[in-house]
């Protein structure tokens, strides 16, 4: 299927929806139905206008949020990979820490965001920390699953070739776990942006999440939607980047090395 044909259908759906929204907003259908002022329901063209008019403001905020997301995400990748390897190498540690790992994921990020701000202030620190906390779980769990799903016969084969624990890890288990690691990474990057918004809402002086809060209290709904659009675009682009790297790195079928 050609690129044009692949993207034609979703593109048409988006255009139709945008068009319908544009008309509904222009004719005040939505505001009348909700019984609110008509300026509170911006049309897509108003949002586009805001994106252009507020571009320098939004660019600054985007940069702040992007930096938080990337830093938090990278911290989670490094920590998640290291933690997965440690839990893989030690049965005792895995049994001890795995429930804690799951439990850590049950705490809503909205709930810990204010605590992190209380403890670490209004700087970039608590944002990075919250994003890292959210991203850590999918990376660790997926990588650990990957490490543990290696075909045991491959391990035996490596042992007969004289490989020790470190060699088996480096030459077989880690490469085998790469596709799983990327699955976790893709989930992580998608939720990282959500984490950034929560963190900024808890206390920040800039960033797209902060901008949404400010614009909403000033009833600048077009600017709110503009910031939301940018957040969404950011997540999509980052996701696409990770997918691109994955396709470059993982050039084999993961089933070739996992238990049948």
């Amino acid at each position: 299927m050609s690129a044009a044909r692949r993207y034609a259908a979703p593109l048409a759906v988006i255009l139709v929806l945008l068009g319908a929204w544009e008309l509904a907003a222009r004719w005040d259908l939505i505001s009348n139905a909700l019984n609110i002022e008509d300026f509170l329901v911006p049309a897509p063209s108003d949002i586009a206008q805001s994106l252009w008019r507020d571009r320098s403001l939004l660019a600054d905020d985007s940069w702040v949020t992007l930096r938080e997301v990337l830093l938090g995400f990278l911290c989670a990748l490094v920590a998640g990979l290291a933690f997965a390897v440690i839990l893989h190498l030690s049965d005792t540690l895995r049994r001890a820490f795995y429930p804690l790992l799951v439990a850590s994921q049950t705490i809503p990020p909205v709930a810990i965001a204010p605590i992190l701000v209380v403890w670490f202030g209004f700087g970039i620190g608590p944002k990075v920390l919250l994003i890292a906390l959210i991203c850590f779980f999918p990376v660790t769990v997926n990588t650990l699953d990957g490490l543990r799903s290696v075909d045991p016969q491959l391990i035996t084969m490596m042992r007969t070739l004289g490989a020790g624990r470190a060699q088996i890890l480096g030459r077989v288990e880690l490469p085998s776990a790469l596709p799983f690691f990327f699955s976790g990474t893709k989930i992580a990057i998608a939720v990282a942006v959500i984490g950034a918004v929560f963190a900024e809402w808890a206390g920040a002086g800039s960033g797209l999440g902060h901008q949404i809060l400010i614009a909403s209290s000033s009833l600048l709904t077009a600017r709110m939607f503009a910031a939301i659009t940018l957040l969404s675009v950011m997540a999509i682009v980052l996701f696409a980047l990770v997918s691109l790297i994955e396709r470059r790195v993982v050039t084999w079928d993961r089933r070739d090395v996992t238990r049948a």
Partner: protein
Amino acid sequence: MLTRLRESTSDAAVEDRTSEATPKTLDAIGAPVSVSGVAHSFGELRAIERIDLEVAPGEVIGIVGPSGCGKTTLLELVAGLRPPDAGGVSVGGHAEAAERLERCAYMPQRDLLLPWLSAVDNAALALRVAGVPRATARARAGEHFERLGLAGFEGSRPNELSGGMRQRVAFLRTLMAGRPVLLLDEPFASLDAITRAEMQAWLAAALGPASRHTVLLVTHDVEEALYLSDRVLVLSSRPACVCDRIEIEGPRTPDRAAAVTSRQFAELKQRALRSLAEGAR
């Protein structure tokens, strides 16, 4: 015990063979393998009852038996990958598991090639594990590609190779470990009949008469065992014990078609199949 005296005991013969374009790593001096009164169970399940086996250096032993009779377990016991419940194993005079593992190269039924490595990198895996630099390891493994009919495929990934080629890469990987004892676990079971016949002839040529590897070849194919081996052990169904030992006269030959259609071969095959049927009861 031995069906034929191997000349490899004399130094002159060794010298002669090394010059025959048979590369160094393929010529690790064979080591004797001794299995005495070995038994093994998996919990309640008795896999191996009691097996005795003496293999001389350079000898090829075929081991046939019904499915699930513990043939693979026997190889794992020899290699030191599993401790036996009773009895003893020694390889090259060493009884400790770690020492045995160092002397055995194990080739599993599935090729188990690493899909992210090229054919030559897969073949060179043992060298890389031993700390040989990548370029040297590739060069040393690459030397054998032509002889193995793999020339031109050095850089190919496993998924670009045919089943027979993958199996040959796996065999080369086993050989490159440079161990005196080869444990081959149904090496051709996953191939179609025609490719399997080709690979058997190829293995016969690769193993000898120049090779001095001691080989334990596990298979469920009686013909394969009789064709490739000096001696064939027929195992009974679980718990496995040796129910027949068949000695094969004459040297191993790469001419498979001639070998497997001879009258002598047919008689041995009949005997092996009868023993197998009796042992399966």
